[in-house]
């Protein structure tokens, strides 16, 4: 796994470096114009944002019930990446919304759900940061609740929104996602895997240092 990291990072760096050309060469979307291009970054971020939520929740469950300390490293790594990719999603979303609806923020179901999930990640990280000793277990409990909440957020926000008539026509995205999208998706995914790996490894090594420090007296 560790040996893969430099490869993944190098590859995703090259691919992301070349991404502007790929995106530039993609067909120009007539309704949205240039702003549509943000979608090539928006979509991969949003998907990885959800993947991070899943990893964080599952790892926390394993940590809490399976009593595997290593799982906590994966949980915190996923949470930090969730916040990162969530922020990317939330920044690129409104850029697109500005063009589509003429305002920076609308209570669009997907945007709202993303904001809520982003809030849950932030709350989790605040707890980890300021929770003091034992916050790993408390965080795991919180993450479990956060993951279980994802479908409810989605359903409730959707129904909540449809109660009001849509004020503007939401332009549908071009169904032809094309090569650049999958290209960006691959680059982002590799970056995600590499960062997740590195961050979890940092936690694991920290745990090992602590274990060694603790074992110091045994000698």
């Amino acid at each position, binding site marked *: 796994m560790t040996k893969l990291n430099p490869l993944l990072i190098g590859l995703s760096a090259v691919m992301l470096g070349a991404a502007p050309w790929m995106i530039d060469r993609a067909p120009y979307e007539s309704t949205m114009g240039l702003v549509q291009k943000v979608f090539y970054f928006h979509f991969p971020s949003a998907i990885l944002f959800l993947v991070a939520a899943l990893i964080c929740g599952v790892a926390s469950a394993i940590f*809490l*019930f399976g009593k595997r300390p290593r799982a906590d490293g994966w949980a915190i790594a996923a949470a930090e990446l969730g916040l990162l990719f969530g922020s990317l999603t939330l920044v690129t979303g409104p850029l697109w919304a500005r063009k589509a609806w003429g305002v920076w923020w609308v209570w669009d179901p997907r945007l709202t759900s993303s904001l*809520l999930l982003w*809030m*849950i990640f*932030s*709350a989790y990280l*605040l*707890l980890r940061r*300021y*929770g*003091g*000793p*034992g*916050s790993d*277990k*408390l965080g*795991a*409990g*919180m993450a*479990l*609740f*956060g993951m*279980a*909440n994802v479908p*409810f*957020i989605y*359903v*409730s*926000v959707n*129904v*909540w929104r449809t*109660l009001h008539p849509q004020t503007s026509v939401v332009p549908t995205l071009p169904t032809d996602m094309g090569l650049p999208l999958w290209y960006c998706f691959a680059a982002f995914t590799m970056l995600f895997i590499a960062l997740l790996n590195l961050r979890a490894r940092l936690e694991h090594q920290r745990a090992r240092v602590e274990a060694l420090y603790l074992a110091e007296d045994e000698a």
Partner: protein
Amino acid sequence: MISDFFRVAWHVMRKDLTVEVRSKEVLLTTLFFAVSVVLVFSFAIVREGRAPDDVAAGILWVAVSFSGTLAMGRTFERERYNDTLRALLLAPSDRPAIYTGKLLGLLVLLALVEMVLVPLVGLLFNAPVLAFPGTLAALLVLGTVGFSAVGTLFAAMLVRVRSRDTLLPVLLYPITIPVMIAGVRGTAALFQETPDLPMAQFWIGLLIVWDAIFITLALWTFEPVMTE
């Protein structure tokens, strides 16, 4: 085993209520806080002596969640004061029974607060609180149970954390947003000019599922998160 579970939960709840009957501190402060929240919101939105339509439900639920958070924090502050939470955890019962007892005690308190809050909101904002009493009660009960079920667990696990007073709302509000949406939209469906009963029932259904899942999760996680 089951009877043992409920025996312990019952005694913990009764103990909490006995303490509360004696001091009335949590009930009175929570109630006053809830009324203050309603008034603060009124001043923010009432224009030319009239509140806009459709705000009563929102104000009611904001007041419930704000005052509920206050009450949760206080009931666990009491257990912290003489470290009695440790004594409770030492009892030879399933530890989730302690959680259940604390939750039931909190629910009784919040039910009392809501009995004042609902008529007050009805009065001030001209909301038809008596039009569908059963449906409204179902929404309030299910919403409060869901909110408190998560809140009681979080308040319990934050007892040992120094910044617990700020962390409780920080953790609780994002998680309970679906409950808030369901409560507000369900209640608004009842309060609007032509009440939309099927919509209220949809939200009641969502709350039932949410409550079932989150109570199960809370009972399940209480033991591992409470052992340091």
